[in-house]
Every structure is written in structure tokens, then in C-alpha cells.
């Protein structure tokens, strides 16, 4: 269990993280969401002991994290960077050794990871010769090469093309199967929905939503109805339980208070004319995020 207890970080008068309490179960993928400046990177940096928290404790398996446990932890920072002039292999050997690996172990792992990412020919290339996406693959390898128990990925999929996002996502899921606990941050809600069981949305250093993804969605209550009709939907706004209507090109999305409202809406629609499509769906994480973070902005 990775635990944050009353963790607060202040930089002078600015509070970057405010009384954060989180329990992250082992062998899970946990998503940390938040807009820019929400405090995600600061949280990670405190967890890694790069900066000290002002208050509170952070523990992994009931132990404080220190440099002695750095071989248990893998980290993919948001600020990507490797030694530009060093060859991929040398680079990974150095970083692997710093995580407590032996040279021969690193060499074996490097080969198998590069093959997995379909780029075995990069082993003797300098990093500056690689494309940005491929550099990111190398950086990902650097974060996982020592088979960490706890893996921290700060915006792992940013700047990658869809094919590479899939490759990396598969790798993350495989690591989870091997028992790795993964903590990751992202702006991309679809990635979080796909990967995480638990999540936390941070806003201005405060957790605004936290818990199991399904429960969050259920407790959110509001649902969306997809409607495709040939007439104007504005009259629905007067119905009780209807929050807002988003008109799209092919269909409109109507947000409703709860499931039962959908039946009232359907009834009104069939009275009015031909209904081509009517679909009830779960709220997306995007909706929840925008509402929670947006509400906090107001």
C-alpha cells in the first residue's frame, strides 16, 4: 500500500499540495488527474523525496521512502531527457546501475525491451539521433528496466503517436500483471478510463474526487443521453432533471439528473416525431473532470 497522510507542500505562501490523503492498493494502476499546476508533479517529487513535504507522511509498504529504496521505484519524469551524446546501451547501463542492477542484467533487459518496442537497432545509436517518440520509449525503458515494485509515470503518453501509445499502454498493463503498482498522471481522460481502477482528481493541490472509477461514475449519478432526431431539442431544457444539451453534428448529448429522467425525455421525443437514435450512457470521466474542476474555478 502506498499511503499519503495529510501531505501538504507549501512554497512560501503558495500551497502546491493541500492536505492530501490517499491510499493506493498494491498491484493496481492508480490515476492522478488534474489540470496544469494542480500539484501532480509536486506530489510525485515528494513521493520520490526530491523535495520534502511541509507536513504529513508518505510511506510505501509501511516504510518511508529513501534513497536506499530507490531500486524499488521506477520514475518517468514529465520533463523528458537523456544524455544526448551517449549511446542508448551505455545510457541504460548507467541508469540501471544507479538503480542497483548489474551490468549483465541491464544488457539482457535492454535487448528484450528494445525488441518488444520493435527497435532493436537503436542499441548502439546516440539518443540525439532518435526521434522524440523513440527517445520516449528509451526513457520508459530506463524507468522500468530494474523491475520496480512501484512505478511512477508522469504524463507517460504525451507527445506519442497513437500506435506508440498502444505499445506503451500494453507494456504498462503487462507490468501490472507482473505485480507492479503503477501511479500515473495524465490529462487524457480516455487513457485513465482505460487503465485505472482507482483515481484521484487534484485541483489546486486539493483532491476533489477520489476513489474507485466505477463508484465515482455511479455516485456522480448524472447520465448522458445520445439523441438523433430531425427536430429542435431546445424544448427539452424546460423538463425537470435535464441539465444541459450539447448539440453535435450527428447527434446531441443531453445530460440528465438520473436514469429515470431518460424515460420522460423519450416519451416527449416520440410525441414530437421520429427518433433515429436514443441511447443512455455512463457519464465520461471527462464530464466529471470538467464539472469538478470547472466548478472549483467558478
Amino acid at each position, binding site marked *: 500500500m502506498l499511503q499519503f497522510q495529510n501531505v501538504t507542500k507549501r512554497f512560501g505562501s503558495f500551497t502546491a499540495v493541500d492536505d492530501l490523503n490517499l491510499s493506493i492498493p498494491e498491484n493496481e494502476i492508480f490515476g492522478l488527474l488534474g489540470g496544469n499546476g494542480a500539484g501532480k508533479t509536486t506530489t510525485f517529487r515528494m513521493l520520490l523525496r526530491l523535495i*520534502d513535504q511541509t507536513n504529513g507522511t508518505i510511506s510505501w509498504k509501511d516504510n518511508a521512502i529513501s534513497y536506499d529504496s530507490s531500486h524499488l521505484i521506477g*520514475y518517468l519524469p514529465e*520533463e523528458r*531527457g537523456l*544524455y*544526448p551524446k551517449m549511446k542508448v546501451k551505455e545510457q541504460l547501463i548507467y*541508469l540501471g546501475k*544507479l538503480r542497483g542492477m548489474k551490468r549483465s542484467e541491464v544488457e539482457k533487459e535492454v535487448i528484450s525491451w528494445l525488441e518488444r518496442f520493435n527497435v532493436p537497432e537503436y542499441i548502439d545509436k546516440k539518443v540525439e539521433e532518435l526521434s522524440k517518440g523513440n527517445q520516449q520509449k528509451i526513457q520508459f525503458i530506463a524507468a522500468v528496466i530494474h523491475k520496480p515494485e512501484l512505478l511512477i509515470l508522469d504524463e507517460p503518453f504525451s507527445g506519442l503517436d497513437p500506435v506508440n501509445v498502444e505499445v506503451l499502454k500494453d507494456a504498462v498493463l503487462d507490468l501490472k500483471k507482473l505485480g507492479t503498482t503503477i501511479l500515473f498522471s495524465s490529462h487524457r481522460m480516455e487513457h485513465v478510463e482505460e487503465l485505472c481502477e482507482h483515481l484521484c482528481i487534484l485541483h489546486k493541490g486539493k483532491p476533489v474526487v477520489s476513489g474507485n472509477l466505477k463508484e465515482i461514475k455511479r455516485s456522480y449519478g448524472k447520465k448522458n443521453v445520445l439523441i438523433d432526431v430531425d427536430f429542435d431539442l431546445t424544448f427539452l431544457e424546460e423538463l425537470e432533471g435535464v441539465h444541459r444539451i450539447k448539440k453535435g453534428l450527428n447527434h446531441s448529448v443531453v445530460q440528465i439528473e438520473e436514469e429515470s429522467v431518460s424515460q420522460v425525455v423519450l416519451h416527449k421525443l416520440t410525441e414530437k416525431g421520429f427518433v433515429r437514435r436514443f441511447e443512455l450512457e455512463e457519464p465520461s470521466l471527462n464530464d466529471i473532470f470538467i464539472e469538478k474542476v470547472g466548478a472549483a474555478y467558478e
Partner: protein
Amino acid sequence: MNKFFIVLTQTYLNRLKSKAFIVTTVITLLMIFLLTNISTIIERFDTNEEDQVGVITTSEYFPLLQNQLDRMESNLDLKSFKGTEEEAQQAIEEGELDSYMILEEDEAGEPKAIYKAETVAEQNTPQLLESALQQVKSTVAAERAGVTQKQLLEIDQPVQFEKVALEKGAKTEDELNQARVFVYVLLFVIYFSVIFYGNMVAVEVATEKSSRVMEILISSVSPVKQMFGKILGIALLGITQYTIIIISGYLFMQLQDDEGSQTGFLSFLNFSNLTVSLVVYAIVFFVLGYLLYATILAMVGSLVSRAEEVQQLIMPVQFLIIIAFFIAMFGLSTPSSPFVTIASYIPFFTPVVMFLRVGMLAIPFWEVAISLALLIGSIIVFGILGAKVYRGGVLMYGKSSSLKDIGKALKLSRRER
């Protein structure tokens, strides 16, 4: 393996394999080779031909001048030229002569000469001729005045003037001259190494920071271990480079025949006069000086966001070393002035200035001990401060970097309770 040593060996080996290291070492070796063999090389290029000087003269001074030049063992071939000036000029054009001289007597019977050559940029020959003629003139004048050769020699005899230092343990004149040369050379070595290797540390840190690899590094190694691993890795590199240079220098000198080493450039360095204690002091001040400046420079390097900014930020630190060097240069002639004495206790200047005093004067050991204690103390202070700034600095990315960021970095690394 301890992570500190992983950083140390990585820094060391990476630099050792770098082109910059190999190139600077080779260039230095070439320079040393040239210096130790300069006389042989000059001789090789010297055609050994005697300068042909034609003399248009009817004066009785001419044979005297020839005698005088023979006595001075010059390589001038002075011969009487029967002909006009125009013919002499033609002879120069044809290459028979290198230059010519018109030697006459004035009304008083004193010799006077006009020297003509294609250019008068070359000074050796005319100077030699002038001094020879001067000699001849004074000999003749003396003879006319009835002074004997013996008396003349007595007049010319330089006065005996010996300087003796009364202070116990003070260096004798000879020792001082030797010491001055050594101190000068070693001062330069210390100054140069501190700037060269110190900058290497700053650049190394700045490169890691600007390439953003730093964040991975400090998540696996503590910044303190990382910083000192780097500083000592570069120190090891410096030691390697100096070992290569000293051993090769020694071998070059051994390769020469005895004659060569007598006339070689380094012959004035009489190594037997080099005391062990002076060498030990040189090493101690070199190591401590490097540690002080490398720590400061590593700290400064950690504040830089882009590698290009590093020069701008380390300049103030470099000025300190340059000032120290100038104080030392000034102190070479006045090592006991109060200004130099005070400067030798200021830790930034100690490595160079105290070394100068140790080399030139017989100062009691406690004075050296105090300066060493101050120096070591400030290394520790800057080590602790540096490690803190480093820890915060490596996470800071600003638009422009300045030394004011030290405060910000300290705040970032501080444990706020």
C-alpha cells in the same frame, strides 16, 4: 557497488574517452616535447652558415675588430671588401654577402661605422658588431691613455655584491631564484587546473540539467553523492592527465643526450633544488583549491537552465581565481608585503597566494596551518551549502539564470516545518 562510485567512475570514464580529453592531452604532450627539445629543433633548422659581412675600410681598427670577434666566438665572417658601396650592394643581391659595414675614423681618430643590410630587423649581427667595436674602442683609448691591459681588466671587473638573508631558514639568493621559477610554474599549473577542471564540473552539471536527465538521476542517487561523485571523478581525470604529462615529460628529457638537456629549455629547472616539501605543498594546495572551486562551480552549474548560460554564471567565480593569480604574480617580487600576507589567508586566494609565500619565504608552519584550516573550513561550508543549492537547483527551470537563484534553490530544498 556504491552509487557514489558509480557516478564517479561514470564521470571519469566518460570524460576519459571524450575527444576533448584526448586532444588536450596530445596537444600538451606536443608542447612539452617541443619545449624539452627546443634547442635541438632550432639547431636542426639553423643552417649553421656564418653571416657574411663585408667591410669597406681602410682603417687600422679593422684587424683589431676581427681579433675581438674571434675572441667572442661569434659566427660572423668579417672580410674586407675592396670596392664601392654599389658593388657591395650588388654582392648582397647576388648572395655573396649578407650585409656590409663602412668602418671609418672620425677627426679624433675614434672608430665609427655604418651598418647596412637589406633589413635591419635582425638584431644579432649589428649588436655583436657594435659591442665588439665598443670593446676595440675602449681598448685603444685605454692604451692611448697609458693604461695597461691588466689595469683595464681590473677596471672592467664587476663588483662583488652578495645578498645574505639574516632570518633563520630564509632562502638564499640562489634558492630564491630557483624557487621563483618553480613557484611561477606551479602557480600557473594550479591556476590553470582549477579553472580548467572546475569549469568541466560546472559544464558537466549544467549539461545534465539542461538535457533534463537530472530528474531521473536525482530520483536514484542523492544529490550530495551525485555532486561529490562528479567532483572527484573530474579530479581523478585531472590526476590522470597530469600523470601522463609528467611521465612523458620525464621520458622526453631522458631521451635527450646530455648535451641536449644542458641547453634545453628546461635546463634552468634544476630539479635537485626542488624540495620535497614544496612539491607536497603544491599538491595540497592544488587539491584543496580544486575542491573549493569545484564545489562552488558545481553549485553554480546546478542553477543553469540551458547549457549556454553556464559561462555567464561561472564568470564571477572565475574572476576570483584570476584575482588570486594576479595577487600571486605581484607577490613574486614582493612576497612579504602585507597585502600578499593578508590575501594568503582569504580562502579563495589561499591556494595560489599562500603557496607563493610558502615557496618564496620561510614562513612558520602555524601560518600555513591556519590558512589550510580556513581553506578546509570553507570547503566544508561550501560543500554543505552547495549540496543544498544543488538539491533545489536541479529542479528549477527558469527563463534566465543568475546567482540570485541560489536563494530560491535553498528555499526549495529546505525542510519547512
